């Protein structure tokens, strides 16, 4: 019994202990009389529920839409107060409907994503957030079917601006897209290749951790999460199929991940992330580990926006893993020792304010290699050293609705295997 317990490190037990710590701390925060306008939280909550703060509010608010609800440079016009009580529970969601015409293949219509978000505030400081996703519209227990995934389901314990706790099913804080993936916020029908085969978005796992913000817009997140499973790694898609997705996830050795980002200057976002964890629990005699680092930035100046991201992962022990899998299954997965990718994107709003609708053109260059460095004795396959040009248009009849058209030209370094180009059309919306 004790031997069994000893197998679990402190880091492994941390996800279990953290929720208890969080609860204690948030209750402590609730029990304090907070500074400034905040009264006793129990008084405040009862006032909140009764809506009293709306009528005793010593300060005021106005909603000032621009004339006609459309963009206008001629100032603002009052339309009276538009205040409302914060909702205790709410539902939102987003959808992605695609047409993909891949070279030398029949066109495909795909309702790619149907996502619903549910939230609930137990108190002002204890909140639940969840995201339930149906991919490809249909689920059954066979291959090539869709997926029904619980991508997020966590409770936030909001203690202070600097330190807050969360536990449950979390998004891994790596990359531009993984935590910010609603269809209207990125260009292109499909997510960037780098955010698919290098950073395996949507990357979510069970775990717990802290997050907060310091100074003038310096934020951090640090989580302990279930690790990747090396038995799912592949030559073509790197670590993507190694995600345990919080489904009875093995936490014999938990992974750690974190992100630091700067959001203190208008128009500029910059971040750096890491992930590190042992991955070989399916093969106890094989020591494998993944370390991923990633840096990214977004910058907007007027109608112009630029994005850049670089991600690099070191997969330790893949030589032994390849040999083990070849012995046990007869197939050598030829998993690389290093994978890496980057992309650069520029977009420009060609129909900006004061046009009634918006449209942006964009171009993105991606370079990604899931066999960047191979373990000794394994051959690097050039077909997995790929790059892509994606050009297209995003048309917004409303800021929350986007019609996207793009054309992807994908190339690899192989003289034998071709990568197909594709024409993609997508309709996405958020509500």
């Amino acid at each position, binding site marked *: 019994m004790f031997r069994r317990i000893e197998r679990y490190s402190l880091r492994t037990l941390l996800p279990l202990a953290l929720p208890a710590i969080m609860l204690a701390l948030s209750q402590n925060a609730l029990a304090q009389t907070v500074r400034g306008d905040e009264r006793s939280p129990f008084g405040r909550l009862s006032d909140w529920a009764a809506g009293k*703060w709306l009528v005793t509010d010593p*300060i005021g608010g106005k909603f000032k839409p621009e004339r006609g609800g459309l963009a206008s440079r001629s100032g603002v016009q009052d339309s009276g107060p538009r205040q409302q009580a914060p909702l205790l529970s709410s539902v939102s969601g987003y959808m992605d409907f695609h047409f993909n015409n891949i070279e030398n293949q029949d066109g495909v219509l795909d309702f790619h994503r149907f996502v619903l978000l549910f939230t609930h505030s137990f108190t002002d400081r204890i909140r639940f957030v969840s995201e339930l996703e149906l991919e490809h519209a249909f689920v059954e227990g066979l291959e090539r079917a869709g997926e029904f995934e619980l991508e997020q389901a966590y409770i936030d314990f909001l203690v202070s601006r600097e330190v807050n706790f969360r536990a449950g099913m979390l*998004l891994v804080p790596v990359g531009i897209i993984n935590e910010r993936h609603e269809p209207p916020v990125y260009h292109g029908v499909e997510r960037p290749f780098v955010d698919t085969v290098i950073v395996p978005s949507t990357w979510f796992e069970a775990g717990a951790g802290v997050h907060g913000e310091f100074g003038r817009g310096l934020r951090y997140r640090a989580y302990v999460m279930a690790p990747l499973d090396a038995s799912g790694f592949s030559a073509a898609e790197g670590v993507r199929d190694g995600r345990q997705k919080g489904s009875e996830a093995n936490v014999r050795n938990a992974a750690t991940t974190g992100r630091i980002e700067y959001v203190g200057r208008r128009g500029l976002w910059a971040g750096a992330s890491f992930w590190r964890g042992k991955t070989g629990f399916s093969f106890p005699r094989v020591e494998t580990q993944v370390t991923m680092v990633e840096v990214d930035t977004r910058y907007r100046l007027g109608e112009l926006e630029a994005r850049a991201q670089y991600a690099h992962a070191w997969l330790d022990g893949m030589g032994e893993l390849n040999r083990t899998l070849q012995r046990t299954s007869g197939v050598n997965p030829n998993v690389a020792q290093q994978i890496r990718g980057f992309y650069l994107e520029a977009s420009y709003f060609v129909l900006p304010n004061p046009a009634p609708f918006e449209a942006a053109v964009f171009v993105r260059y991606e370079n990604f290699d899931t066999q960047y460095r191979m373990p000794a004795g394994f051959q690097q396959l050039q077909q997995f050293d790929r790059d892509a040009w994606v050009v297209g248009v995003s048309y917004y009849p409303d800021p*929350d609705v986007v019609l996207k058209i793009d054309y992807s030209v994908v190339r690899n370094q192989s003289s034998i295997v071709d990568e197909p180009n594709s024409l993609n059309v997508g309709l996405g919306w958020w509500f």
Partner: protein
Amino acid sequence: MAARDGCGLLVGMLVSLALGGAVTAQSREVIEIVAERFAFTPSRIEVAQGDTVEIRIRSEDTDHGFHLVGRQNVIVPKRRHGEAVVMFDADEPGVYRFECSKLCGAGHNFMRGEIVVTPRADHDVAAAGQAKCAGPDTRGPLVEPRNDDG
């Protein structure tokens, strides 16, 4: 290894960028806040006790909420559909939290910030220190304080 070193360098740059102190409001000043998934920029505002500040919040994407905890809650309309305006009377020193009150996506709970009201004397000392570096402020009042009920 170069990538690892580069990552470390970027982290250092981010930290140095953030060490600029908070946005400081002066008497009757307008503070503009941009709301975008998933941050308010700026997210920390300092004002002196007794000041009245007009806070204008506009969105760069979807609808957001601006909830000044314990006080009021307004909708911030979508990109290019206008702005929300909140008048804030800094009556008492303290920290006043604000947050997004309309679910806007996966990182909704990250959208938080605070208004720090400092006693007038402390604020003047800090402002004097800034003036030594920046020279005299000749801007004058920008916006007359107004009664929000009007």
